[in-house]
């Protein structure tokens, strides 16, 4: 899922300057799970904006705001409330915010910061394990991603900053390369690491990216 966090209210208020009426949009998927823009957060935002002197013309929680056609359709179903608003405040990931911008000529305000593609450890705990590099090498690294889990994305082993198995950047994180090495050792295939891994092909990371499936 996409992990996002809500921007501080004062930042949102600054972005809403120059208009009184706001239509609030949440997302029923990722933003709900990470509590940045589900029903509850949209409701709280409505209260906060009302308390700050804004007029909320309506709210909606779209099922997958990243779905562009659905977002367009759902906004059309609330055309009156949307048309009345000076701003559309969106509490979803950056993809969802841009679905809204694509569907409406209204001024769109982002109420969240999108952080990472996250695994869910348990309720309210998210960890980045994949950075969508476009060229998966988990088959060579024991199922642990050096591109993401190593703070430097190193492909050929740990840097000199590893200390007692911990990462130079965060002492509370285990060095990805220690994890990879120990895991492959337990599986008796540590020799997989003997070969030098060539440099990454960053062409896979060119953006904006797109994919159209063959029919």
């Amino acid at each position, binding site marked *: 899922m996409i992990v996002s966090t809500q921007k501080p209210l004062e930042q949102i208020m600054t972005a809403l300057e120059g208009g009184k009426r706001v239509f609030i949009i949440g997302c029923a998927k990722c933003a709900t799970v990470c509590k940045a823009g589900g029903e509850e957060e949209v409701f709280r935002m409505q209260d906060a904006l009302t308390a700050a002197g804004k007029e909320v013309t309506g709210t909606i929680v779209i099922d997958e705001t990243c779905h562009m056609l659905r977002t367009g359709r759902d906004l059309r179903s609330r055309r009156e409330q949307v048309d009345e608003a000076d701003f559309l405040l969106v509490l979803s990931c950056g993809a969802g915010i841009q679905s809204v911008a694509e569907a409406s000529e209204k001024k769109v305000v982002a109420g969240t910061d999108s952080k990472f593609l996250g695994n869910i450890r348990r309720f309210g705990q998210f960890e980045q394990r994949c950075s969508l590099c476009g060229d998966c090498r988990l088959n060579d690294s024991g199922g642990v991603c050096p591109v993401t889990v190593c703070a430097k994305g190193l492909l050929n*082993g*740990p840097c*000199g900053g590893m*200390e*007692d198995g911990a990462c130079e*950047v965060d002492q509370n994180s285990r060095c990805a*390369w220690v994890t990879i*090495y120990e895991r492959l*050792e337990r599986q008796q295939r540590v020799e997989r690491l003997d070969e030098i891994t060539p440099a990454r092909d960053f062409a896979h990371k060119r953006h904006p990216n797109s994919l159209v499936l063959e029919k």
Partner: protein
Amino acid sequence: MPSQLVRKLAANEFVITAEIAPPRGGDTSGMLKAAAFLAPFVDAINVTDNQGANMRMTPLVASGLLVREGIEPIMQLTCRDRNRLALQSDILSAANFGIENILALTGDHPKLGDHPHAKAVFDIDSVQLIQVIRRLEQGLDMAGKKLEGVLPKFCVGAVVNPGSDPLEPQIMKMEKKIDAGAEFFQTQAVYDLKSFENFLSKTKHLKTTVIAGIVLLKSAGMAKYMNENVAGISVPDNLINEMRDTKDKQAQSIEIAARLIKELKPMCQGIHIMPIGWDKLVPKVLDAAGL
């Protein structure tokens, strides 16, 4: 003039290197003075690359200035701040400046330095960087395009942290660096001889030159700080106590460093002194160590 470092490595003679940092500013007079002071006592001088991820003048220019002064630099080159185009450009430029030695490193993460909001590049890693240098020497860049004119030639070194725990992944990477073409290794500072011996016994199978790192202790506080904050450094309590109890910290620092060097000398092929500002003590340390 052929590189003194290359000559000594080839003759299997004991190597002595030291280290200076380019200035945080455009004036290189202080750096050149420090280099000129150290030069008569050492074979080559490392020139650091934004060390600790703290912004300074580029080691390319600083090393080039040393060459102009007749001082042999080991240009450090990290993967933190430059993508593959910039790294290759700098390597070719180094050849043009007459820089003969390059130390290839990963580089500390920007989070540890004075520009924590900088983009961490790490387009390639230190193993790949060594390969790139070797490939350029063969006349090919990373894209496979041919270089023009006289080809560059370098003595390429790498680093290893012998106090790394666990050690095996570090040795795995060291092996890759040798496969890639590293000719010598400078190590993180060594204080714990037992742990260094353990490292040497686990790397006996590797045919390379190990140059042991020596950081001059300045105080008990500094030693404790390094123990807590610098990966792979472990200053034993007896050395910390010696620094705490002494009235003359510089004399004690010299005594400890010289003792370490004497003990390390039979075990490795060279020492790399990082004086951390106490440059003027380096000749005294070497003298006391009988070098």
